[in-house]
């Protein structure tokens, strides 16, 4: 598209979309939820498998692949259960898909992937990527990701996403052919650049701040609960020693022996019960982690808005300075300092012909500049509109999901308490028999 005068303004994905493309995107976000892909297709990540192969630097590596199964929704309702279509994907391909979505739909709070490496683990939980529990939790996370994308009003109709689910071979090439990579690189550069926006949209600034807070507080919560889980594990496991000693003691007692022995078994059961409890807690942690990563996605959208705003402001600034230059040239007064101006002063005035040529060039540039400003203005407006729609959607989803998570956390605590009551009541019965 049109180039602005200076080179250091990044070219971002949005400006590369033709007006008709952006219109299309807008249409998609306004589409009712009823047309989400999930209405037509069942999606699941059914299995995980280990593979070995040569990597990019020709070294042997072991990695995990995940089986994606899809099936038309009405297939099951016909009574027969046809074999689902399936293909294998590895984590890096999911990452590629997500990066593509991030670049192509910058106004969408894109669902996050499950974590690449296990973090916030309490010590008994493995931080090893090959650990079967980690792989299983990741499988669930990947399925969740696909379901979220498939139910998103804008993302679910994306062609690349559809191909990800259905075309095993050649998908990578297809993605690269969209040229998103170039946009991705420049986008990455832009997002890390520091700049200041003169008129930030208050709502986005607040959202960004909220994203920061959410990320901080969920991180803290995850850390706290990981440490607490560690300690709780210790408490339960030490009770196992009671079992051992009761058993040994029962051997030297006559009347007390039976009661002690059976009480000891319950102590062993108590100690063992913590493993299940903490596994359930991991599920809760995963729900929190999803929103930890969502917070990042939210901030990305806000940052993108800032960028858009900044570019508009840059274009406006540039136009203003060009207009000023024209004025100076026309009236012969130099108000703004420019190297050219200075050199011309030093080395003599320009000829009228040179002046004329310059003016003409400036006129063209101003015309182009005005076009650019108009474009960027409408881009900004569109971005704000569609981003805000998605942010509202995200807020509702987040409130619902996190509330459900808190409820299931409470249910989990209740279950833990019930188990405790049962074990200690049983132990009490045994002690009674001592």
């Amino acid at each position, binding site marked *: 598209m049109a180039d602005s005068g200076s080179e250091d303004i990044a070219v971002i994905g949005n400006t590369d979309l033709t007006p008709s493309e952006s219109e299309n995107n807008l249409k998609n976000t306004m589409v009712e939820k009823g047309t989400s892909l999930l209405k037509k297709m069942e999606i699941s990540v059914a299995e995980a498998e280990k593979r070995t192969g040569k990597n990019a630097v020709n070294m042997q590596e072991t990695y995990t692949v995940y089986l994606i199964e899809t099936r038309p929704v009405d297939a099951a309702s016909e009574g027969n259960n046809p074999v689902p279509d399936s293909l294998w994907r590895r984590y890096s391909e999911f990452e590629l898909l997500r990066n593509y979505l991030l670049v192509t739909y910058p106004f969408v709070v894109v669902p996050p992937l499950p974590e690449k490496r296990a973090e916030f683990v309490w010590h008994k939980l493995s931080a090893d990527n090959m650990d079967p529990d980690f792989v299983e939790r990741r499988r669930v996370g990947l399925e969740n990701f696909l379901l979220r994308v498939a139910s998103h009003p804008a993302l679910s109709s994306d062609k690349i996403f559809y191909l990800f689910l259905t075309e095993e071979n050649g998908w990578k090439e297809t993605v690269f052919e969209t040229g998103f990579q170039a946009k991705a690189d420049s986008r990455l550069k832009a997002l890390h650049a520091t700049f200041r926006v003169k008129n930030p949209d208050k709502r986005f600034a607040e959202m960004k701040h909220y994203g920061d807070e959410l990320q901080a507080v*969920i991180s803290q919560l995850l850390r706290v609960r990981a440490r607490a889980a560690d300690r709780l594990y*210790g*408490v339960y496991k030490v009770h196992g020693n009671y079992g051992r000693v009761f058993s040994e003691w029962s051997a030297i007692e*006559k*009347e007390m022996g039976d009661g002690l022995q059976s009480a000891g078994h319950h102590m062993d059961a108590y100690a063992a019960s913590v493993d299940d409890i903490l596994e359930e807690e991991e599920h809760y942690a995963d729900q929190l982690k999803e929103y930890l990563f969502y917070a990042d996605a939210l901030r990305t959208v806000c940052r993108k808005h800032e960028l858009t705003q900044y570019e508009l402001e840059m274009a406006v600034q540039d136009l203003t300075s060009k207009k000023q230059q024209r004025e100076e040239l026309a009236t012969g007064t130099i108000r703004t300092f420019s190297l050219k101006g200075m050199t011309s002063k030093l080395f003599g005035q320009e000829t009228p012909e040179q002046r004329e040529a310059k003016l003409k060039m400036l006129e063209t540039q101003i015309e182009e500049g005005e076009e650019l400003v108009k474009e960027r203005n409408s881009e900004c407006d569109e971005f704000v509109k569609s981003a805000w729609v998605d942010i509202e959607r995200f807020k509702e989803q987040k409130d619902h999901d996190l*509330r459900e998570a*808190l409820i299931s956390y409470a249910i989990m605590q209740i279950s833990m308490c019930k188990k405790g009551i049962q074990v200690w009541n049983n132990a009490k019965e045994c002690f009674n028999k*001592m």
Partner: protein
Amino acid sequence: MSESIVDNIVPSGNSSVAIPTDISGQILDLDEDDDLEVFSKDTSTTLTDGSSFNASMQTSPASMINQYKLEEEEEDADTKDIFVTVDNPESHVTAIETYITYRVETKTTRSEFDSSEFEVRRRYQDFLWLKGRLEEAHPTLIVHPLPEKFVMKGMVERFNEDFIETRRRALHKFLNKIAQHPIFSSSEDFKIFLTAGTGELTSHKKQGPGFLSRMGETVKAVAAAVRGVRNRPQEFTDMQEYAEAFSQKISSLDKITQRIIREQKEYLEELKECGPTYTLWSQSEEELAEPLKNVAGCEDRCYKETEEQVKHLNDHLIPVLHEYVLCADTLKAVLRRRDNIQADFEGKAEALATKKADRDAMSDELDKAENRLEGANNALKSDWIRWQKVMRSDLRSAFIDTAERNVSYYEKCLAVWETFLQSQRTDAEGNGKVDSS
């Protein structure tokens, strides 16, 4: 475990306790009465198989077993005729020292007491004195342990509130154990301990066996220990093994429980952060603020319950386990003393066999030593049984108490979370929220 200990049931005549009430003097003075005779006749036959019931026993095995069961229940009922309370610790400051005294209140219907109610103040030293007197008078009876002088672990100060309270409870238990003991409770020293004014007690203390005589006893004991026992009856060896094993087990339980408390405390440290984190989060949210604050409240309440739970464990289970760790040491000490008495007898028997002169005097002494040994053995055996019953009852109660406390803890936490669930359900209904996923 050796059957002889358990099956060798002590006959009881009409009284509700297993051992005749007043043989305290008789063990040393060797006066015989019916009960004691039956007692000693029973044990003079070989002790290993429980089927050798003596014909002169007044009750049949079946009714003895019944009596046993009755005794367990009766101890809880109002056959207690003496009630002792230890409370009200007070600090006393003198020029030389600072110390704590405890109020000891006695209510009794026993005839040997001049009145039915007494109130005195005693310090830890006085309890130590009483224990020493009882042990001296009855070397092979099992005296319940006193709390230790100071606790080195955790650097507890003597005047720390918790320490004083723990000690008070232990002293209360000590006196009650003495009061419930068939022989100790009728000890003159015990009576004086409960009733005498401070000055009176001090002068009575001075009347005890003098330094020299106590030294003499100690020398005898050392000599006997050095000599060693030759023919220790199997049942006492079995007791020794039991005491060792019991000591190990109960110490392990003590350590395990302390470890649990430590882990719980560390858990509490982390749990403390939970509530505040949820509260912090609620400040950034709108719709979620209420459930988050609610969860914060739940975590805080669970924290408090856990704190209470740990305190209970510390204040109730630990002291009992600790008492029985000390008891195990007492058992070993009692067995050692019995061994010494036997060694003394054996030594004298040997001496008599070898020496020619002074036979009469030595024969007399030998008789005394033999009677002393027999008395000691009998006393130990019956007290062993009594002790086992008490131990079983105490530890059972302590474990049941702990289990009940744990159940109660979980019930309380359960209620906390169920309230939260309830609130979320009614909220959802109230706002007409529909599942939008």
